[in-house]
């Protein structure tokens, strides 16, 4: 069983649009949307939810106004500025609360509860391309990567149960916790970049992350024709670091047109773009050791 994750470093390079197309092209797979902060893959795949679970992670402090005697020790000790005086005593701002439990431990009158934090929901769904494991963090929730790990575990178990040889994941932008968690156990990361200063800069950082966590990396340059000089610079970088460049895709309004229709670009009539994308997928299969 192979796990492939599509990442980007920079947001907006086309990661989700390409993952949707790969989900169409790939055989016998479980699809997983690991961008739990702003998941978009479902907009292309129109999942029918079969299972829905609540996600709890960490805790938050809540001061019981009846018991609080207004001593203010909690506010003094809180390193995150989460406790404020509200006239009737002290209260915790859930947006700033880090869930560290210091106020709970030190309150002289035990006025502070510490319930689990309800951070989001995750789902297992059916789509026209196969099963999709996905989630939605509630807006403002901490994105520690734990939900990403839950989804990966579920996707792997589902793949095992159904005899699927591939878990194909849409990753999150950036280089923080959620991306780090996404890379764990992945056989291949495919970074989608664009020929802009930000695209190249962020590719270098996400490549650094893959190196740090020893994950194999290949690159797709999207919208390459916007700036052939910058495309060439990215190719030099990839060559120097031995990252295979799997494809150069032109900037094509088809991608948005497909999105608006709730389709992936390979479901539209064949084009240079879809052909090049098909070649890229074959190369990914070969690199990841998937039987063709």
């Amino acid at each position, binding site marked *: 069983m192979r796990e492939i994750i599509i990442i*980007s*470093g*920079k*947001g*907006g*390079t086309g990661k*989700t649009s390409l993952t949707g197309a790969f989900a169409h092209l790939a055989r016998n797979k479980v699809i997983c949307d690991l961008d739990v*902060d*702003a998941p*978009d893959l479902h*907009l292309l795949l129109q999942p029918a939810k079969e299972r829905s679970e609540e996600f709890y992670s*960490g*805790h938050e402090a809540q001061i019981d106004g009846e018991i609080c005697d207004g001593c203010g020790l909690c506010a003094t*000790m*809180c*390193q*995150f*500025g*989460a406790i*404020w005086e509200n006239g009737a005593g002290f209260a915790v701002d859930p*947006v*700033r609360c*880090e*869930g*560290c*439990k*210091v106020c709970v*431990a*030190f309150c002289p009158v035990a006025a502070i509860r510490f319930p689990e934090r309800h951070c989001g929901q995750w789902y297992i769904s059916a789509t026209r391309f196969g099963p999709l494991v996905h989630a939605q*963090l509630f*807006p*403002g929730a*901490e*994105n520690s*990567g734990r939900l990403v790990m839950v989804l990966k575990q579920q996707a792997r178990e589902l793949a095992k149960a159904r005899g699927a040889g591939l878990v194909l994941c849409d990753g999150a*932008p*950036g*280089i*923080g*916790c959620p991306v*780090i968690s996404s890379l764990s156990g992945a056989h291949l990361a495919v970074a989608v970049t*664009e020929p*802009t*200063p*930000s695209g190249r*800069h*962020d590719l270098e*950082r996400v490549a*650094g*992350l893959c190196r*740090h966590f020893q994950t194999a990396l290949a690159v797709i340059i999207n*919208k390459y024709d*916007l*700036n052939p000089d910058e495309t060439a610079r990215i190719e030099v970088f990839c060559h120097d670091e031995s990252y295979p460049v799997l494809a150069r895709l032109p*900037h094509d*309004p088809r991608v*948005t047109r497909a*999105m*608006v229709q*709730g389709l992936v670009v390979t479901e539209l009539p064949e084009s240079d773009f879809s052909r090049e994308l098909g070649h890229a997928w074959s190369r990914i299969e070969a690199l990841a050791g998937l039987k063709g």
Partner: protein
Amino acid sequence: MIVAVASGKGGTGKTTVAASLATIWDGPVLGVDLDVEEPNLHLFLHPAIAGSEIAHMTVPTVDEAKCTYCGACSELCQFKAISVFNQVILTFPEMCHSCGGCMAICPEKAISPGQRELGEISWGRAGGVGFLAGRLRIGEAMSPPLMRRVKARLEQMLAAAGGDAIIDAPPGVSCPAVNAVMDSEVILLVTEPTPFGVYDFKLAWEAFTPLGKPMGAVINRAGLGNDAIYRFCQEKGLPILAEIPYDRAIAEAYSRGRIIADLSPGLKETFVTLRDKIRDLAKPSQPRAAAHA
């Protein structure tokens, strides 16, 4: 006034808008890059860097001569940054959130502050625009601790020199994005009128509305996609403060690191109008005098 330029979806044009706004601003202004995972603002403002520092956060260091392995620290730590079992005490500095709990609870006062490197903060000037940015160390998992330190320096810089600040926020709607916008006076939400743009915009609207700041939308690549975004903004009473048209020439100029407001008088006017509308939207602020989150 502090303006935060945010979005749900990545790649909609936050940095583009922040850089152009800073360039046309009339008055002292600081461009602040709080997208510490992937800072891009410098690629457009081209600042001359005047100084930088490595930012650290406090992590526990244990004096085992004083430690009795009572386990109180390990019992309290929610992040497993300090662990006691049998006659062993271990610290995992990369897990630490710097809450100070272990140091406060230790009955033997055996734990003192050590340091973990978060990343780098740099500052300088780009012509008339001040510049401040954070850059997360690769492998460092959390952005909010570094963001807090950049914000602390921002407060110092504004207190010393006055003026306004334009924050380039990270994408998304979880805690890094909320951290970036929570101490601003106005939030700009930049989006594109595609299904992904609209969906993520709604998430951002849900995430940021409880913060109680005035918000306005900027539609980038207008003409692409469909008009669902306009209907949503109208429904929620969210003013659309600017539209930047979908234009291959703009995309190509962006790919060369150009400032969009410099491309034509029309585009400059778009950003000047945006600036004025932001000022109209901002209310007099009364920030709580608490430590930053």
